[in-house]
C-alpha cells in the first residue's frame, strides 16, 4: 500500500474541531509526566512528617506527661497483639506483600523508559504497514531543522499506539521570529506529516530552546 492509498482510506482532516483526547495529547506530550512519582513522594513525605511530628509532640508531653513516660513498645499494645496473634500475623504479612508490590511497581514505573509508539497504518490480515517511531521522528526532525530561524530540531513519538503524539524540540536562532516558526512548524512540517501518514489528527507539543548564546556587538 502506498502513501496515496492510505490517504484515500483515512478520515478527512477537514476543519472539524479535534477531539478532546487530541487536545489532551498535545498537552501531555510536552514532557514525560512525573505526576505519579510526585503523588507517591508527597504521600510518603506527609506520612513521615505526620508520624515524626506526632511522636515528637508525644515525647514533649503535649498529649500528657503520663503518655510521654510510657515505653515505645507499650505492654498494652503487645498484649493486644498477643491476644489475636494469628490475625495480626496475617495482617503483617498482607501489609508486607502490599508494600513489596507497591514498592516494586513504583520503582519499575520510574525506571521504565518513555514509550515511543510506532504508527500502524494498515493492520489487515494479509499485510501490515508500520512506520517506526524513529522513522517519523527522523523525518519530522529533519524537516523542522530546515525551516528558516531554526538551528536544529529533534522529534520523537510519544504517547501510546492508540493515541500517538509528537514531541518536537526546536532550537531557534537569534534572528528567528518565534511566532512564524510555530506557524511554519504547523503548516509545513506537522500538516505534511499528517498528510503523509494519513492521520486526521496528530497532537504536537513544541518546546522552544535558544540555539546558542551569541553576544550582540556593543559597538557598531
Amino acid at each position, binding site marked *: 500500500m502506498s502513501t496515496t492509498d492510505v490517504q484515500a482510506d483515512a478520515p478527512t482532516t477537514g476543519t472539524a474541531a479535534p477531539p478532546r483526547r487530541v487536545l489532551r495529547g498535545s498537552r501531555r506530550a510536552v514532557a514525560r509526566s512525573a505526576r505519579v512519582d510526585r*503523588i507517591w513522594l508527597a504521600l510518603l513525605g506527609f506520612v513521615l512528617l505526620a508520624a515524626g511530628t506526632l511522636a515528637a509532640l508525644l515525647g514533649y508531653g503535649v498529649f500528657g506527661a503520663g503518655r510521654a513516660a510510657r515505653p*515505645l513498645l507499650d505492654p498494652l499494645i503487645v498484649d493486644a497483639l498477643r491476644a489475636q496473634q494469628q490475625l495480626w500475623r496475617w495482617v*503483617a504479612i498482607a501489609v508486607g506483600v502490599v508494600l513489596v*508490590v507497591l514498592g516494586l511497581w513504583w520503582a519499575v514505573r520510574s525506571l521504565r523508559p518513555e514509550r515511543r509508539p510506532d504508527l500502524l497504518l494498515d493492520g489487515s490480515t494479509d499485510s501490515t504497514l508500520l512506520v517506526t517511531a524513529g522513522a517519523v521522528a527522523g523525518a519530522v526532525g529533519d524537516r523542522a531543522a530546515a525551516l528558516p530561524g531554526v538551528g536544529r530540531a529533534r522529534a520523537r513519538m510519544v504517547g501510546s499506539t492508540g493515541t500517538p503524539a509528537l514531541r518536537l524540540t526546536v532550537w531557534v536562532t537569534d534572528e528567528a521570529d518565534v511566532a512564524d516558526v510555530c506557524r511554519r512548524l504547523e503548516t509545513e512540517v506537522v500538516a505534511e506529516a499528517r498528510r503523509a501518514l494519513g492521520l486526521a489528527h496528530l497532537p504536537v507539543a513544541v518546546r522552544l530552546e535558544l540555539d546558542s548564546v551569541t553576544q550582540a556587538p556593543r559597538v557598531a
Partner: protein
Amino acid sequence: MRVLLRTLSPLLGLALAAVGAIGVIEVVTAWVRPASSGLVVPWPAWQLVLSELTWSDRPVIVVSICVAVVGLLLLLVALLARRHDVALTAPTPEMTVATSPQVLARLVGRTVRESDDVAAATVSASARTVVVRAEGWPDPDGGFRGLTDTVRGRVSALLDELPLARRPRVAVSTRGRKEPR
C-alpha cells in the same frame, strides 16, 4: 528538582519493597520457628530496646524530629518538582508550544544588554514575572529614570514580539556604575 524526583522515586520504591519483604520474611520465620532470633533483623534485641525506651527519651525525640524533617523535605521535593514552563500561543488547538523560563530570561537579558545605556544586567523570569536588575549610568540629574525607561521599553517590545500565552509582569531595578561610560 525533577532530577531529584527521578532519582528518589526508584530508590524509595525499592526501599519500600525491601521493608515489606523483610517484614514478611521475619513474620513467617517467627511463625514457623518461634525460638529463632530473627533471620535478617534481630527483632528480639530490638524488642528489648523498644520496651525500655520511653517517648520522652532524648534519642526518641531526636529520631522523631529527623523523621519529620525528612518527611518535610520529601513533601517539598514533590511540590516543587512541577514543570515551570512558559506557555506560548499555538497556531492550532492540536499544538502546544512551551519554552523554559531560562530561555525567556536569556532572551530578555540579551535584548536589555544590547542597549548602550546598560552596562550589565541580570534577569530572572517565570511565566508570571520578569525581573530585570540593570546596571548603568545615571541621568544628568543623578536619577535612573532614563535607564529604567530604556530597559522597560526594550523588555516590553520583546514581550510584544513573542507569542506568549500570558504576558508576564515586568519589574525593573537599576543600579549606578561608578566607572565612566
